[in-house]
């Protein structure tokens, strides 16, 4: 994977398709990133930060009840939900925060689908004393209101994006526009292993801490490498984070789970590498498999999980897919709600809707394996932030009554 014939490419994928105005910034970013990569003290500082500000290493939890329930493999859950701010996104963001400090920039911008990435960014900005502007599709501002509230409280400016489909990809475009305008002072904290080089490599590097920990932990608890590892795939950062360390371990099967939405057949999904709806393209600064029409116009995607609702996918994953190192599957919204429900009841653990996609596929495959095998599910984040989405998706009547009553109270105030 790291044998790139061409700078910033992973096999046929990646690159840096950027406007000229950003050329210089990317030169500096590449230079700084290369320095950091080759400086063991930097990684040390990063690990130190993550173990004092967040709680790395995050636990690897043995899911006794689920394992017994499916009667197959031992199911282990990597608990990225226990990170500060509630998701793996913090790993990448805090890492880039250290980078920003080194580059002496004073402002960060970020964009989001699910809100966890920007929550982490607003948090990092507060901690490092940086100005912070967040671009969020108007659609997602609605879906993620609580996050918006907290980000504003932490001092960030949240800009609802009203262009395009008002979701992640449009927020990314808006963020790029801000960047080309304020390039000197501003760093764009890219949220996933996509975008122009060096972002995919950089984000994968910061996130790889997940797999480094998981490898040690599974050996300690299970005595050997896992049979399979499952991770949900939006842009691909939590997946790359846990996969990276295991790529050389050819006996470990790596499975990425995409958003099947209403079902691949319906076209309302975000399945790029599973299914056959995606085709090679170049957008948002990089080359990968995109969900686009025959003219190259990007399609609208759908998922109950805002964080998986994205047209592109990591060029690194496209490469691993092409090379057959990572298998891709899709989980439908319905399957996701069922897996979430079961996990809450059996283990007292509440995965984010995104993460629940990984649980779906793990539950399908666990029975095929033996109790002597271990599988790891990367629980990329916690679901309690998704209360509005989840309570809504479960169609919970008392929740709805509660919201109705509160709403009335508030309207009467006016």
């Amino acid at each position, binding site marked *: 994977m790291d044998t790139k014939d061409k700078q910033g490419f992973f096999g046929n994928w990646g690159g840096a398709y950027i406007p000229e105005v950003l050329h210089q910034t990317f030169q500096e970013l590449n230079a700084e990133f290369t320095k950091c990569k080759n400086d063991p003290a930097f990684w040390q500082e990063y690990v130190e930060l993550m173990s004092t500000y967040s709680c790395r290493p995050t636990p690897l939890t043995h899911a006794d009840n689920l394992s017994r329930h499916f009667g197959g493999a031992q199911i282990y859950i990597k608990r990225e939900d226990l990170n500060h701010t509630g998701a793996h996104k913090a790993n990448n963001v805090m890492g880039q925060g250290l980078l920003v400090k080194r580059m002496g920039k004073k402002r960060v911008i970020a964009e989001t689908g699910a809100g966890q990435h920007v929550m982490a960014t607003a948090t990092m900005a507060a901690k490092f004393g940086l100005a912070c502007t967040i671009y969020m599709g108007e659609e997602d501002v609605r879906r993620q209101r609580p996050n918006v509230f907290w980000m504003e409280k932490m001092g960030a400016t949240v800009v609802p994006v009203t262009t395009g489909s008002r979701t992640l990809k449009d927020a990314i475009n808006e963020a790029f526009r801000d960047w*080309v305008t304020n390039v000197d002072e501003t760093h764009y904290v890219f949220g996933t292993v996509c975008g122009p080089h060096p972002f995919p490599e950089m984000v994968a590097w910061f996130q790889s801490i997940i797999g480094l920990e998981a490898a040690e932990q599974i050996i300690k608890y299970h005595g050997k490498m896992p049979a399979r590892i499952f991770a949900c795939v939006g842009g691909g950062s939590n997946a790359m984070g846990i996969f990276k360390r295991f790529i050389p371990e050819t006996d470990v099967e790596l499975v990425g789970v995409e958003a099947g939405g209403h079902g691949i057949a319906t076209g309302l999904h975000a399945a790029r590498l599973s299914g056959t709806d995606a085709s090679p393209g170049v957008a948002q600064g990089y080359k990968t498999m995109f969900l686009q029409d025959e003219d190259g116009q990007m399609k609208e995607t759908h998922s109950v999980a805002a964080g998986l609702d994205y047209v592109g996918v990591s060029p690194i994953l496209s490469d691993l897919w092409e090379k057959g190192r990572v298998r891709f599957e899709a989980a439908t919204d319905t399957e996701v709600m069922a897996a979430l429900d079961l996990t809450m009841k059996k283990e007292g653990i509440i995965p984010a809707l995104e993460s629940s996609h990984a649980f779906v596929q793990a539950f399908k495959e666990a029975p095929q394996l033996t109790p002597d095998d271990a599988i790891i599910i990367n629980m990329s984040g916690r679901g309690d932030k998704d209360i509005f989405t989840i309570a809504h998706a479960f169609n919970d009547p008392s929740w709805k009554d509660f919201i109705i009553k509160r709403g009335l109270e508030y309207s009467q105030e006016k």
Partner: protein
Amino acid sequence: MQLEQQLRDRLEKKEILLMTHIVLGYPSFDVNREVIRQMVENGVDCIEMQIPFSEPMADGPGIVRAKQEANRNGTKVADCLAFAAEMTASHEIPILFMTYYNIIFKYGEKAFFEKARECGIKGFIVPDLPPEEGESFLQLAAEYEIAPILIFAPTSTDERMRVLSSHAKGFIYCVARRGVTGTKSVIGQDVHDYLGRCRKATSLPLAVGFGIQDRDDVSALIGKADMAVIGSQTIRLVDEKGAGAVGPFIAGLR
């Protein structure tokens, strides 16, 4: 005749050239047709026709909204090519394509160049394709004699400008400031210095756009650049006053 030469010939007779910008399919090809007619009749020297792309990373809100509309109107790449053929046939000023790389990539680079030459297109402006990622693109450009117009930015170092110049043909598109298209700005000393650097770095003609709105903006460029680019202003004009307003506006710029 090559794009650069066409522009040089026109520069014989004019202190400064005008290039205008069209978003294909917005509000409709009929309006595009009328607007172009008025532009040409009022002395525009070059037109860049933008093929809309759903992810316009480097465009300003004005153009972005126009493109959304265009896409929503179901504007197809095939329609844009057909329309281009019609325009190049009916007007003899050089006409260019501006678009994002995915439109070309998805169509097939070779096929797209082939088709574009057929349509009489003289140059391509592709803001998200730096030469580093455009090897095959540049080869094909040479092969099909379509000018690869590259962009200078204020953030480009002198050395970088020389590299870009070595790959570019036709003219250099100088972005006057950081940021996206369509926001008005005055040209102060910094822009002068910047254009000076551009001039030093290339022998190609320089086109400059920075939200030009009137005669003063244009004349301010005389002597410093070879071509003034009117971008989102005409789009705004058509939105507000209709196609008819374009002619007088252009006429009033020089």
